């Protein structure tokens, strides 16, 4: 197997990892809470792409039976699709809850920068 084969066969996984790391970097390095939620969503989508990549079959077709039961058709693996369908919806639910908490934090603290919020908490404790 040549080098280009290795790259082509793993390109999807590597882009997924790059996306995952961009998401993780956002969560760690950015102080703004909304930006952290967006980073978490980028991370999440990269995991979806990972699963769907594993389910893909070269020369296959979408896992929907057309007409009679054709035995010589290759279908993509439907199992990762099912898992990811559930994960997308759950992901949006958690995003909604996170955004609600962000709105509340802004109402209570007047800022969404992590550093400022920690400082306000420390000031309140030392008083």
């Amino acid at each position, binding site marked *: 197997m040549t080098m280009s084969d290795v790259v*082509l*066969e793993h390109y*999807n*996984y590597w*882009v997924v*990892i*790059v996306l995952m*790391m*961009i*998401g993780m970097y956002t969560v760690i*390095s950015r*102080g*703004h809470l*909304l*930006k952290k*939620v*967006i980073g978490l969503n*980028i991370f999440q*989508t990269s995991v*979806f*792409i990972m699963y*769907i990549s*594993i*389910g893909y*079959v*070269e*020369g296959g077709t*979408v*896992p*929907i*039976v057309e007409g009679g*039961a054709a035995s*010589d*058709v*290759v279908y993509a*693996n*439907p*199992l990762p699709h*099912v898992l*990811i*369908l559930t994960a*997308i*919806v759950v992901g*949006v*639910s*958690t995003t*909604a*809850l996170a*955004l*609600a908490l*962000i*709105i*509340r934090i802004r109402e209570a*603290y*007047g800022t*969404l*920068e992590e550093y*400022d919020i920690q400082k*306000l908490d420390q000031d*309140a404790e030392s008083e």
Partner: protein
Amino acid sequence: MPPLKAATDPGWVSTLMIELIANNVLLLFLAIVAVAVVRVRQLLVSVMLFGIYSLLSAAIFVVMLAADVAFTEAAVGAGIATVLMLAALARLPGEKEEARARGQFWPLVLVVATGALLIYGTIDMPGFGKADNVAHRGVAMQYVERAPKETGIPNMVTSILASYRGLDTLGEVLVIFTAGLGVLLVLGGVHTKIASPLRPDAVGIRDGERRG
């Protein structure tokens, strides 16, 4: 797995090439948009770019033969999630991310190291699109063979989601219900403000505690 009948079809190779090119180019776009989402400081621009990111990932799902996932990602990921973020931004007037040079180096080191380890871990993974991938054996193959016959639903994803794994879907609905309840509880009710230098007008619980 039945043998690939498409291997004898002369038009097959070119279609496969187009699929591969579309997949790779879309993934490259996705990476570029993700970097833009992170780098942009205006939150509205960031949220809109994130909508584009979701839509691009939906396009990739179509290329990778996951039509149901693509529908859901386009409607829920690109649609509802973006609308939710815009609705949240509408309740955060004048919100802007502050540019801080502090603490950018060590996160980068950590992320690059983790990424390198993960890429090392993918070397042994079965190649993208290979029909002999272990993930396609066992229970997945059983579903492909039996689901259309046993449930009478042509779409295998639907039959697994609603029939075989129906209880999981019920659990999913429970998660959505809990999240909805959580949003209502967090945003509804009496709001107390914490007094802070940024909000000198706010008289909140902390003040009340001090007085008491």
